[in-house]
Structures are given as structure tokens and as C-alpha cells.
């Protein structure tokens, strides 16, 4: 069914024709005060804001740690973007919006799933830049790019003053800090603006919203919900999502009972293996161990096999690149996967899109 849905989107896009020929509201009328389309209003995302301005939009990125605006910039309709994208989720969104031709740089081809991007890379139209720590400023300056997208981590992008002087637009992306699955998906609106495809972005997001609600409804009347644990031991500490985090919400929306859902916070909860055993010895399902085989998990966590859920283990790591690129924009698919895992009895849930059961 998801395939039909995607084809539906493609139909809409093709129906729209070439976007650059569409009349943008701004270029159409002289009325500077025309409101942005209602659907462009940011409803769920907390880390960016939009405003309509003359000939384009004003976008503000909010630092989730300080709550203050970290970056504020204008996007005008007539300025083509050539993008170095160092974040997988935005690569995914650019793919979904069919705007991969705007990408001239990525971080590492090994982490790319999108066939279009891979093809362009093979054709030599996309260069690798590594991550923020190994970033080469000379390479950037000599490239054809004018925009850099990177996962905001609180600090400034290396050499950002120099690059901005030359004319680069450097945008920290905080979709990964959104706690609401729909808030994450909503960043496609920002991508829509950057690519000049706001309408498609809106349509996509509305669809995602609807799909998500619909999928959520499947578990409204379930009788018994399974208990769930997420995360794994790293070194001597188990990191599990805290109660207000994205994954905790997902689990709840999918009709699962998560032990740590009442622990406040949007980051991780740390527990010793002892406590995990105490709290989750009889837990039914284990998701997101971060590794793809029981062997690897056993290496990092020799006591894992004492969890009952060791035999009910699901992870998206078998195709991580797909997960990183698509899950943010299509949270309803993640939700659907989780529902399928938690409530196999529900007919409406499909085969797994991202997740796989780990058997060996």
C-alpha cells in the first residue's frame, strides 16, 4: 500500500509539472503582505520557524538547547541552490522531493541509500566531504556549492565565518532533536522552500500526517499491549530513550508499553545492566539494539541473553542507510513497522519497511 501512496505523490508532482515554471504567490502579485499558505505554518516542529517575506521566506533555526534563534536567513525564489548536504535525513527529503540534482556534496557515499544520489555520485556530479571533523575548507571553496546543510550540534560549523563571507549559506539542521515524529517530518517544509517546491512539500506533509493518524488509529482499541525495551549496552551503560523522546512517543503511539516512559527528558536514560535486567527481565519486545546480529550484540553485551526479549529482537540496522534517509520524513512507516511488531494480530499493519527481526 505504501507503494501506491508513493506513486500517488509522484502523480501529484508530475501533475504539478515543472515547479520552476509554477507561479509562486510572491512573483504573482505585488501584495507584499500576502499570507503564507496556511499549510506552511509550522505546527509540530519546534526547532524552526517560517515567515513570508518579499520574494521569498524568512527561516529561523532554533537551537534546542538554548531555545534561542541560532540562525536566521532568507530564501528567495530566484536563487538556485547548490547544496552540500551532510545530513542523511535531509538527503532523504531532497530525494522525496525529487531535487537531488541540487546536491553537489555529501559526507560519505557509504552512508547514502538514495539511488538518484548514488547515480549522480558515480557520474562525478557529487563530491564527498567527510563529516564536520574532517571537513576541508579548501575543497568547499573550490566547489560549486552555495549552501551547506549539517546536523546542528550546538557549536558553529568549522570556519563558518570565512565561508559565509564568500557567500555560503550554512544551515544547522535540528530535525534530529525533534521529539514529535510529525515535528521531524515537518522539516520537509524547509526543504520545500530551499528547493522551491513548497507546494509538494505541503502536500507530502499533509499526507504523512493523515497516514500517521490513520495508522495510529489501528491500535486504539487493542486489548493487551506488549512491554517494550529500546536501546543497548554501550560499554557499561545501557542507553534507552527518555519519556519525552521521539522513540518513546513512537512506542506509545504504536500501542506498546515502555518502562521508562515516565522518566522526563528528551534524551537518553542511562541504566546499569543490573537495573535493565531488574526492570525488563520479562519485557516482551526489544527494539533498536543498534547492531544487526545477535553475535555482535553478544559481544557488546554478554548478559543480553538473559532478557526474555532477546528472542524477540528487532532492529533497523540491516539497512541503516534506508532508515536514516526515509524514517524522518515518513514516520508513519516507522509507526506501521512498530505496530506490526507489537500487534501482529492487527490486519491493517503491513510487512516491515525498515525493521527486521534479528535471529542470529
Amino acid at each position, binding site marked *: 500500500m505504501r507503494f501506491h501512496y508513493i506513486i500517488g505523490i509522484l502523480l501529484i508532482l508530475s501533475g504539478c509539472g515543472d515547479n520552476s515554471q509554477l507561479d509562486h504567490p510572491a512573483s504573482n502579485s505585488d501584495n507584499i503582505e500576502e499570507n503564507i499558505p496556511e499549510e506552511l505554518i509550522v505546527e509540530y516542529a519546534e526547532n524552526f520557524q517560517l515567515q513570508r517575506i518579499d520574494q521569498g521566506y524568512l527561516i529561523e533555526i532554533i537551537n534546542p538547547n538554548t531555545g534561542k534563534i541560532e540562525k536566521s536567513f532568507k530564501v528567495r525564489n530566484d536563487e538556485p541552490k547548490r547544496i552540500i548536504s551532510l545530513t542523511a535525513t535531509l538527503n532523504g527529503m531532497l530525494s522525496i522531493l525529487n531535487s537531488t540534482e541540487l546536491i553537489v556534496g555529501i559526507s560519505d557515499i557509504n552512508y547514502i541509500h538514495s539511488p538518484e544520489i548514488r547515480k549522480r555520485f558515480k557520474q562525478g556530479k557529487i563530491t564527498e566531504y567527510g563529516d564536520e571533523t574532517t571537513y576541508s575548507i579548501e575543497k568547499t571553496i573550490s566547489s560549486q556549492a552555495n549552501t551547506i546543510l549539517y546536523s546542528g550540534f550546538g557549536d558553529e560549523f568549522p570556519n563558518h565565518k570565512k565561508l559565509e563571507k564568500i557567500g555560503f549559506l550554512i544551515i544547522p539542521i535540528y530535525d534530529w532533536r525533534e521529539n514529535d515524529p510529525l515535528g521531524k517530518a515537518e522539516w520537509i517544509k524547509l526543504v520545500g522552500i530551499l528547493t522551491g517546491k513548497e507546494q509538494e512539500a505541503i502536500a507530502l506533509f499533509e499526507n504523512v500526517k493523515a497516514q500517521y493518524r490513520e495508522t495510529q488509529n489501528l491500535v486504539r482499541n487493542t486489548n493487551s499491549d506488549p512491554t517494550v525495551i529500546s536501546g543497548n549496552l554501550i560499554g*557499561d551503560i545501557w542507553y534507552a530513550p527518555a519519556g519525552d523522546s521521539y522513540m518513546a512517543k513512537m512506542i506509545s503511539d504504536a500501542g506498546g508499553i515502555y518502562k521508562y516512559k515516565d522518566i522526563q527528558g528528551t534524551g537518553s536514560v542511562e541504566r546499569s545492566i543490573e537495573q535493565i535486567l531488574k526492570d525488563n527481565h520479562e519485557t516482551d519486545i526489544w527494539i533498536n539494539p543498534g547492531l544487526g546480529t545477535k553475535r555482535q550484540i553478544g559481544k557488546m553485551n554478554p548478559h543480553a541473553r538473559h532478557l526474555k526479549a532477546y528472542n524477540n529482537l528487532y532492529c533497523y540496522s540491516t539497512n541503516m542507510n534506508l532508515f536514516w534517509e526515509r524514517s524522518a520524513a515518513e514516520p508513519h512507516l516507522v509507526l506501521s513497522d512498530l505496530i506490526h511488531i507489537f500487534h501482529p494480530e492487527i490486519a491493517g499493519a503491513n510487512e516491515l519497511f525498515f525493521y527486521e527481526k534479528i535471529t542470529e
Partner: protein
Amino acid sequence: MKAELRNKVLLLAVVCALPAFALLHLLAGQVDIQPGEFYDSLVNFNPKNTNHLIAREIRIPRMTMSIIAGGALSIAGLLMQNLFNNPLAGPYVLGINSGSSLFVAFSFMTGIPLLTSDMGTITSALIGAFLFGLIIMSFSYLVKSHISLLLIGLMLGSFTSALVYILQSVSTAEELKAFTMWAMGSLQHVELSQLPLIITLFVLGSLGTLFIVKPMNILVIGEQNAKLLGINIRTVRLIIISITALLTGLITAYCGPIAFVGLAIPNLVRIIFKTQHHGTLLLASALIGGIFLLSCDIIIQVLEEYIHIPINAFTSLVGAPFVVFIVLKRLA
């Protein structure tokens, strides 16, 4: 006579202290478990009882490993300090630990099927230690002075570290993370079923030192002088190295590298017992090493709800100032 009596009393005190610390350690975890439950978990194990599970599968192995790691590394450290006549030598100076690291790095990062099996990490570490032990033993037979041996060991260590570094730079993020985690060291990754082998190897290694108590007592006056008192240096070197390789390799295999214990404890023991009788020093090092690591881990567990401190960080925090103290004392 006073001094001998004093040392005997001290030893007795340490022997009694060890089980006390062991018990404290068992009870130091965040989950509340009563002493009686530990006994039950071994004798009347109920798999449905989480406390039994934790007591048996987590606490008892962790406690045992703390003692054995502390003891083994301290003995190995004492052996190295004796062989090289240098109080700043530790169990890792011969580069044996680097051999373990290298092979563990292989097992995490090149995906060789045999080495990435369930036993992969431990087997790799043991193989690495054994191989490097052999290499060092061969050199030991060839070189005249122990300083040459020390230099070779250090260079071997550097070379291997470089190799590991290169391996890290060509590995994936997950592999890198897994190896980094291993290299941080941990007392908690041991399973109950592995204890019999660990204990056996530890006992073997420790008992092996009985054969060299006399040579060690004499080696403190220097290799040349020891030779002139009838000690067969080549043989003694080989025995010291093989025991060190066994004990160090054992601990590295099951815990990863653990810093400072092997270096600091023998020095502390010498300062407390004020003797060069290596029978006493070996026994005291093993016991006090065990008590030390138990104490570190107890404190770590007590602080766990406020802050997590990895074992290596803790031993370094405590050990480094102590080593500085020794160096200054020596220079005075």
C-alpha cells in the same frame, strides 16, 4: 624480629579483609539484594527470580573478576618491576597487551569469520597475548641485557598501536565504536560460565611464581650480580615473561586494558611491608590488588546513580597521583 611479625600480622589482616570487601562489593549494586539471596542464587537457582539472576549472572562474576584482575595485574606488575629492576614498570611494558589489542581490533574490524564468532573477542585477545609473549620470549633469549628487552617491548607496543590506529581509520563507525568500548576496559563483561577457566588460569599463573621466588629475591641486586650468585638468568627471564604473558593476556582478554593497577600496587605493597622478600610481596600484591580493584568498583557502583565512572578512569584518577608520588620519593 619485630618487622617479620608485623608483616605476618599485616598479611593476616589483608587475608581477612579480602572476603569482607568481596561481600561489600556484592551488596554495592543499585538493585537491592540480600546476602542470603546470593547463596540461594547459586544453590537453589530460580530462573524466574530476577534477584537470583542478577546475583548469579552479574554480581558474582563482576566481583570475582575484580579480585582476579586486581591480583593478576599486580603480580604481573611486580614481576616486571623485578625483571627490569625498575619500580615504574607495569604489566604492559613488554607490549603483550598490545598484541591482545591488535588481535581484538582484527576481530572487530576486518570481519574475518573465525575471529568474529561468539568467542571472537576473548579468543583473539588470548591468541594475541600468546603470540606476542612468544615474540618477546625469543628476544629475551637473544639479548644480553634486560634494558634491550625493555626497549624491544616498548617498540613492539608502539608499532602495534600504530597498526591498530590504521585499522581504526578504515573501519565503519559501528566497528570503531565497538572497539573503542572494548578498549575502555570493563569488569562487567564476564559470564558465570567463564569463571572456571579464568580462575584456573589465574591460579596456574600465580602458583607458577613459586618457582621464581628465590631468583626474584636475588634479582633486586642486578642481573650481573644475580648471575654471579648462581641464578640462570635466561631461564628466569623466560619464566617471568611467560607468567606475565599468561596473567596479562588473561585479564586483557576478559576485561580489556586496565590501567595503573599493575604499576601502583606492587609499589604500595613495598612501601607498606618494607621488605624485599618476594614471597611476601607476591602474596600481598595479589591480595591488595584484589582489594584495590574491589574498592574502586564499589565506589563506582555507589556513585552510579549520580555519575558513571568507567573503571579505567577511576584507576587512573587514583593511580596517577600515586605514581607521581613514587617518582618524587625516588628522586628525593
